């Protein structure tokens, strides 16, 4: 082997995969066009508009910097790559009160607004792709119990069932606070003072995050999101923590997609 052969071989053997695996897909996916709805199956003809809310920039940055990706993923793989979609709550839910079967695989638009897709390294903790939906479901379950206990009817005057928002509104300040729940989890995941006490909770190995909280003086009843209140001091979340929690409770990768992209094409014609 001559030096010339070596260099030609090295450039070719490295350059080709570099182009095929990295450069070209990178360039192609930069200008990904949204798919169009199908008139027959979707009963609409506009383009798919992915919706993302929450603190995508700051929240996702803190999510990465704190290494949440070490233990949590944010992807629901198609069935050829794993059974994620069949796990209740991961890719959506089988029986959503309003939308029916919302389960679907994660698509390329689910990471819109983020610098990089936090696919994650391992699943030591649960997948967080639909964490926001799971917290919503937990809130609904607890709010229903509270409403029943308080004698609030869950059926409206027109005999239709109350929505999650309506139940929360009826409960007022006693409604389950999703943000407070996540703050408490971040402060101490093994905290016994959770509102879902009584549910079967598996002991968590999630890390406590004291860096997200600060001690301030306590005046009156304490701050709304204080995670620990002592006579003259309270522990409240920092700005970073608020961004992260805002990002987490808005993680909802189950929005309706065009028929062609759905997990179950026989069930969801005209998805909303």
């Amino acid at each position: 082997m001559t030096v010339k052969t070596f260099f030609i071989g090295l450039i070719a053997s490295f350059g080709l995969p570099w182009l095929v695996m990295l450069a070209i897909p990178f360039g192609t996916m930069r200008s990904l066009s949204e798919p169009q709805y199908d008139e027959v199956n979707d009963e609409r003809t506009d383009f798919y508009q992915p919706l993302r809310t929450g603190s995508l920039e700051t929240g996702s940055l803190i999510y990465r910097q704190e290494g949440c990706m070490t233990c949590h993923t944010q992807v629901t793989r198609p069935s050829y790559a794993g059974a994620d979609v069949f796990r209740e709550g991961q890719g959506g839910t089988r029986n959503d009160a309003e939308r029916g079967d919302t389960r679907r695989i994660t698509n390329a638009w689910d990471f819109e607004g983020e610098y990089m897709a936090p696919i994650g390294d391992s699943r030591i903790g649960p997948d967080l792709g639909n964490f926001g939906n799971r917290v919503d479901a937990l809130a609904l379950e607890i709010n229903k119990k509270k409403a029943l206990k308080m004698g609030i009817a869950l059926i409206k005057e027109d005999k239709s069932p109350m929505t999650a928002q309506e139940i929360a509104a009826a409960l007022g300040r006693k409604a389950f606070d999703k943000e407070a729940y996540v703050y408490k989890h971040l402060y101490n995941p093994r905290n016994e003072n959770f509102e879902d006490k009584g549910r079967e909770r598996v002991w968590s190995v999630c890390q406590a995050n004291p860096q997200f909280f600060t001690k301030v003086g306590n005046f009156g009843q304490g701050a709304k999101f204080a995670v620990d209140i002592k006579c003259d001091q309270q522990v409240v979340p920092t700005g970073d923590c608020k961004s992260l929690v805002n990002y987490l409770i808005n993680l909802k990768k189950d929005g309706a997609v065009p028929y062609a992209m759905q997990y179950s094409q026989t069930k969801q014609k005209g998805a909303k």
Partner: protein
Amino acid sequence: MSTTNSSNIEDTQLRANIDRSLRHPVMFFFTSGAVWLAISLLLGIIASAKTHSPEFLSCCSCFNVGRTMPAHMSTLIYGWGAQAGFGVILWLMSRLSRQECKQSGLILAAGHVWNIFVGIGTLCVLLGAGTGITWMAFPKSVMIVLCLTYFLIGIWALIAFRVRRGGHIYISQWYLLASVLWFPWILLSGLAFTHFYLGDGHPLMVTASTAWFRSAIMFLFFTPVAVASAYYITPKVTGRPVYSYSLAIFGFWALAIFGPWAGMQRMMGASIPAFIPYLSAGAVILLIIPAIALVINVLKTVKDSSETVANSPSLKFTIAGAAGMLVFTVMSAFMSLPDALKFTQFSIAQYGLELTGILGFFSMCMFGAIYFIVPRITNREWISATMITQHYWLFIYGIAFISVFYTALGGFMHGYILEMPTEDPSAAVGRLFPYAVGLTTGFVFILFAVFMFCSHLMLMWLRLGRRSNHPTLLAGHASHSSPHGPEGDIEKLESAK
């Protein structure tokens, strides 16, 4: 006869001059690398302990798994792996090219800059100012400085090759040259696709490029350096040529052709072009070929030299490293099979596999090279054969335990739970407990081994060993039949001069 003698003297003088010219930079890379390895293992123990005992060190958020894990991997790669690689590349390339290093001061200065910035990067990660990008967790500015510093180090290996003496180019030189050229290409690609295009590229392709980066660093930097070292140490210590040069060249091209395609199998199921993960999975499976080529060559070369193998620490570590490469590539191939990937993609097996590759394969080969190189550049023999033996066995026990118990068994169990849709994902936490404890135990073994190695290396740098230019043999001292020549030849030469 006198011509041969004069040529031998010249040759010995040249080798001594090369060794002397590289003494400080190479020893600096090895010693600081060993310290980073110990730091990395400490961070690994903390991260591992916190996965089974989350209240451990919970007073300080800088020890959270999310911070210690990237700090542990970054120090392992840039602190230990890269620096051990630089030391071996510089020394081997100079020796094989028969050229002294003229700029050892500059390399030493670059080495200091490298270490300072690895330190800054590690602190940033621990204080929560890292990027969160796996294997590129240091802040962007730190990564850029590391990249620039590399050019000041790597260029001298290229220059040594360019001005080499003698016509024949050894197989180790091809591997070293490739690693020296691949490393900046990979580093610049990683920086370009993750940092400079951050926000412009599609988030999924940014993540995919980090998956490629990890694999490329492993297969196209760590692997060729380790293989080059094995192809140098084995014939040198046994006194025989490499069994098959053609097979070695074949292994090299198999690595060069398949290596750059690997890595993206970690993105299986993500919404990137579907052919990419499959191509990567195929490439990983084919990467068994260079491992088989290395193992055949090493075993055939040391055949009938069982006494030499038993006595030479360099050879023992190198053979263990070659076996480690085979284990690593076979495990990688198995875990990349699309059916197995369902279980392993997000299980602890992936982290265990990385440890098997970096510690069980690369590090073993580097230890072999260091045990060979250090006595030559310090002109001192290793102080204690017992410490070397303990280092060897503790390290083997630790990494074998991690590979078998944590990676293979724990990885499968974890993946199995994750693939059971009816199981609560939190149930995996309970199942993981014994394997997490096993990982901590394995790390403790390895840390003890590295502590032995590290302290031994520092004592050598202080030149406390017995004056000799021979490698330490685990039984007795160098014999007259040693391939390294008679004892004291360099000292005689220097005193005559």
